């Protein structure tokens, strides 16, 4: 048993942290306030090879692994949830399924520019009537000669309105239920594909969350992702990895808030002493430190299992459940330790609290994670 990160992973952490401290952290507040997507940061991340981290170089990637990606996401989230979710949706929800299920030709044509960050991608599963029950997809794809014709709507799609390319699920064989769902690659500008308005959100304000519409949208037959009627299985696999990624994001947000709380507790003086000397504050800090450590271990282990090619569905759900509820508790305590200063914008923990809130909802709500874990424990 070995709990040490490899030298390579330690160096990746150092490199990403250095980049984040220099180029993201100083702007995290502005990104939140202006509600604008930070294109220049996305382009810098592309230059540094972050966006294609876990994919082989022949597909435009950096030749790293999933644990490396998870560490990078954690470090980015430590400063900005908005940048982290953008990165997560692009790399782990769009590039990853293209890499896992795409044909050689699809990878060459679509994965390479995405992994290099020349293009930005999105993953469209959720619909107005199909949230947790993703199998209830109403979007329809009908074959017409050498085209597929898409009709339907997606909502809450991260990077949706700015994406050059989206992966979307649609029913291809409605009578077959979840076995009749397929995934498609749709390019920006395809007639009948409309990238709709962006949501106004509680947090993650620098990220884009949009509606997508398909009206007789005709796409080439070869844009079916992998095999027909495999869509449901494909996104379950995609979400397993995605859950580890969002758990890493929650861990990073918790770590960021924790560091701010510790620094503040050391400096804030009340009743003639630093508040860090009050046992009530110390207990909060001890709990925060312990839970973050536990969350990180669950996240890294799930990523490691994926890397080993082992089953990790249950572990991914556990990591997601625990890390995202840890981030809630940690950010709440970070605000509490800051007192009134924690509730005002200037001290950043308020933003982290808002940003982390999504983590218990996206990529399967925490109720769904409990359901997945219970099924693994109790059997179906």
């Amino acid at each position: 048993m070995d709990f040490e990160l490899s030298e390579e992973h330690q160096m990746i952490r150092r490199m990403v942290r250095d980049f984040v401290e220099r180029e993201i952290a100083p702007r995290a507040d502005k990104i939140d306030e202006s509600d604008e997507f930070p294109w220049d940061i996305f382009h810098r991340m592309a230059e540094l090879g972050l966006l294609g981290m876990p994919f082989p170089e022949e597909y435009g990637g950096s030749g790293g692994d999933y644990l490396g990606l998870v560490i990078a996401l954690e470090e980015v989230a430590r400063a900005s949830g908005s940048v982290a979710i953008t990165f997560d949706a692009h790399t782990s929800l769009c590039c990853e399924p293209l890499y896992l299920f795409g044909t050689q030709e699809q990878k060459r044509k679509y994965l390479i520019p995405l992994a290099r960050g020349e293009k930005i991608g999105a993953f469209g599963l959720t619909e107005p009537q199909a949230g947790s029950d993703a199998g209830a997809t109403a979007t329809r794809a009908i074959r017409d000669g050498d085209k597929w014709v898409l009709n339907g709507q997606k909502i809450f799609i991260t990077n949706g309105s700015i994406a050059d390319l989206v992966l979307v699920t649609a029913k291809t064989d409605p009578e077959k239920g979840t076995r009749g769902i397929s995934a498609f690659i749709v390019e920006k500008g395809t007639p009948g594909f409309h990238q709709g308005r962006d949501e106004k959100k509680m947090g993650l304000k620098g990220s884009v969350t949009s509606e997508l519409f398909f009206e007789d949208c005709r796409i080439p037959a070869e844009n079916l992702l992998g095999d027909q009627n495999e869509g449901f299985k494909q996104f379950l696999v995609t979400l397993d990895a995605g859950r580890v990624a969002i758990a890493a994001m929650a861990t990073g947000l918790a770590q960021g808030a924790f560091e701010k709380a510790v620094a503040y507790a050391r400096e804030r003086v009340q009743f003639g002493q630093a508040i860090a000397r009050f046992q009530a504050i110390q207990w909060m800090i001890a709990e925060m430190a312990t839970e973050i450590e536990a969350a990180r271990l669950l996240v890294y282990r799930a990523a490691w299992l994926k890397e080993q090619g082992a089953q990790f569905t249950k572990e991914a759900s556990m990591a997601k459940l625990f890390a995202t509820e840890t981030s809630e508790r940690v950010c709440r305590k970070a605000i509490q330790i800051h007192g009134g200063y924690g509730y005002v914008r200037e001290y950043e923990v308020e933003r982290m609290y808002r940003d982390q809130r999504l983590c218990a909802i996206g990529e399967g709500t925490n109720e769904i994670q409990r359901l997945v874990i219970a099924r693994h424990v109790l059997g179906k």
Partner: protein
Amino acid sequence: MNAIALVKHVPDTAQLSSALDGLKLMAEGPRIINPWDEYAVEECLKLREAHGGQVTVLSLGPAQATEALKQGLAMGADQAVLVSDPAFEGGDTLGTARALAAAITKLGTWDIVIAGRSALDGDTAQTAIQVAALLGVPQLTYVAHIREINFEAQTISVERMLEGGREVLTSRLPCVVSVVKEINEPRYPSFMGIRKAAKASIPAWTAADLNLDPATVGAAASGVSWAEVSLPPAREGACQIITGDTPEAMAAALVDKLMAEKII
């Protein structure tokens, strides 16, 4: 073109806190590559990009100092050498410079050695100067810009950062240069560099490998010894809140106080 960057592994002073004071930090705290030395590595890499050749990173320190060398490799250096021997411990800057100069000589032909302006911990800014003196080559310190470098003619022209301006100097090569942060913007390590660095095995040269008499280096040869290292006295600060009925009255009261204290 053969360029050598001198890199020192130093305590990470950003980690200073009430729990980790300077003495504890120097003894057991986390370490980083000396920030100025990243600029030295970057300048070597830029020379290689413009002129071809090879970049070597060189450090003297315990085995842990390979971390600083690996950072240099991850940024893109071609090779790294650690100079390490218990005999070097407790040495003053001259002992350190002797070992570094011997290692530079052992590396073979070279055109330029680039160091940082000073180290975050020792902060003497002597090492590079002493290395130049021992090698018998010119030294150009506090360089903010290399204007021109010609490896055929073996000449260099640089701008030195002075307090009130800049000074332009020309020199022959080989020489030793120390750089300030104005000279460039160090690159981040690339993933390819990180993978290469993580796998690299870095040779460690001992005093014997460098044909150095242990009596000329380390504590044994130190002209300067550290009698004591202590923390600066805690600063006594008193906070006073200026009150007043209007902002104007408060400002006037503040100005009076500052003038009384002869601050303005």
